[in-house]
């Protein structure tokens, strides 16, 4: 799943909703007694309730399976083969390496020594591929596998003060 897939899903659902909305708006001059409309709405409500809730329950299972939390990622991606310690401060990143192997499972141990930061990895095309928060006093473990070699950029994605937008670092995957 990429941002493009998400955008398409969003646009399709929005288009469906907009069509329904237009149908309601265009129906206005064609008057029907309130009792009939209410009755039809209640029938529709009854028909939609179960499929809608069932779909969400099924999707919920998938959501957790594909979530980025270590306990799930160890199943979906694999156990970490390489560990990288990441510390952050206003306004910079300290990684204990600047080169990472492709096709190996990497575990980032991310923390902060001052305020909250957001450890976000952007690929060479400028697309966000993974993230976790950097919080003082806690270590967030982000498990990720780089399939594409290239230069990656770390951006801060949690607002941390006036130089937040220049809190950058890079590393290479080969």
């Amino acid at each position, binding site marked *: 799943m990429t*941002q493009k897939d998400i*955008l398409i899903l969003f646009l399709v659902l929005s288009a469906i909703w907009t069509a329904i909305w237009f149908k*309601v708006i265009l129906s206005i001059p064609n008057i029907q007694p309130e009792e009939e409309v209410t009755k039809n709405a209640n029938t529709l409500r009854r028909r939609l309730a179960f499929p809608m809730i069932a779909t969400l329950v099924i999707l919920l299972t998938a959501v957790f399976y594909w979530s*980025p939390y270590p306990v799930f990622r160890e199943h979906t991606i694999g156990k970490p083969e390489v560990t990288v310690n990441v510390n952050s401060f206003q306004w910079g990143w300290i990684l204990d390496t600047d080169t990472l192997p492709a096709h190996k499972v990497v575990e980032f141990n991310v923390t902060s020594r001052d305020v909250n930061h957001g450890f976000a990895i952007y690929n060479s095309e400028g697309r966000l591929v*993974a*993230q976790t*928060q950097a919080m003082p006093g806690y270590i967030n473990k982000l498990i990720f596998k780089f399939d594409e070699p290239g230069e990656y950029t770390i951006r801060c*994605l949690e607002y941390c003060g006036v130089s937040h937008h220049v809190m950058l670092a890079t590393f290479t995957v080969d």
Partner: protein
Amino acid sequence: MSDHSIDGPAYGSENRPILRIALVYMLTGFVIFLIMGILGLIMRLDHAGWWVISPNWFYRIMTLHGAGMVASLLMAALGGIIAILNRTVKLSARWLWSAYVVYSLSVPFLLYAVLIGGFSGGWTALDPLPYHGMTWSKSAGVMMYVTFLAVGVGFLIYCVHIFDAVRRKAGGVRRALAWEVIFSRKSNSQPYEPEVAELAAIVTAIIGIVTVIGGVLVLVPLFAEAAGLVKSVNPLYSKNFIMLFGHSIANVTIYIAVALVYGLLPVYTKRGGHTTKFVALAWNFTIILVLTPPPHHLYQDFAQPLGLAIIGQVASWSIAPSVLLLTILGNLSYIYRSGMRWAVPSVMIALGFWGWVFGGIGGTIDSAIPANQLLHNTLWVPAHFHAYYLLGVTTFVWGYLFYLISDLSGVREKASTKIAAWLYGIAGAGFLLVFFFSGADSIPRRYAVHLPEWNLYAAIAVPFVLLTIASLLWIIADMIRGLRGAWRNTGATK
């Protein structure tokens, strides 16, 4: 059965001093909203590369914009509720003025923090940043939290009074929450049916009280830290409670705004206005739907106990079926084939339902944990809540304000102003779509400086923002004609 369900205006005019207070709440909110909108435009101009401002000022403007918008729209929505409740519930001018004064104290505190203290830590003021800002002093950070306190205490005074007033009228909390309607059997032919506005008011008051308690639970330790009584506050704890406070205070605003729609729709459709079982259920669910999703703001804090992420996920997704099947479907059925009379307020209501669901689709997608991994803190997030606000809350609340002023003054709207209302919707939708596309392109939110390849998005957004402002000015030009008359018809008792 309700007394004022369909007939009569969607406000109470007998107690004129109370109606004056409602007008003051709404107009205060409206004026601040307009100023904050200009600040929003400045930020988008900066992103387009057309009016570059220093990061220091960008982030100060961003802080003002966020705090000002959240607080002003909430205040305006609360004003609307006062006007509607005034039909059937005895309210106290002293309580409502007290709430207004305390709430309004937030304005000088915020201005001091940002303009004099240089605070630019964002409206969420996420601990530990306010006390470690590097470019502002700790006292500016404290002043920001005092701003929170003023809004919180003002809101609390309001909520406690509304809760008490509605409970008294109903003769108990269960009756006020329409539980007799929900649990009524056919043999019990006379369940107590509160007005929709009363039900909505007590529900949002309960949410407000819990929200403020959440705020106090984080503000007390943060003030203790500032006073040197404790070394620091656990950042995971403070983040959870700041998000509970911030999310709930923002989220409850749309429900308060929808309560105005329940009052206003019958004026234009001659339908609805009754607390049916579905309406009662929807409002009771709202308490849970507002207060349980805040953990979704911490999905990317992997140190957070997994149980809280699960609660956030399940709660966030519970909103979709509940709101769609109960509130949206219910209100659309009031509009569908109703012969609804088109006027500025009814156009705004129609637009508001579109925007609410549109923003909701974006939010529901983002609240799926794997999607959030790719969207969190990109412009997708402001896209989602700007949809809620711009094409949900503001259309409902300003639609109601327009109606109130027009009806109180007897100055009828110009037929052409409806065009302005539709334009507001079209411009808003364009502005929001650009935000969503920007988020899908991984552009971070809260960035003072955008990369050159990102400028185009903001360049497309700016004309839409200008059109939004122009259409709003058009609406104001019509609304202002009735302002003096409306003002005269409130205030001193007849």
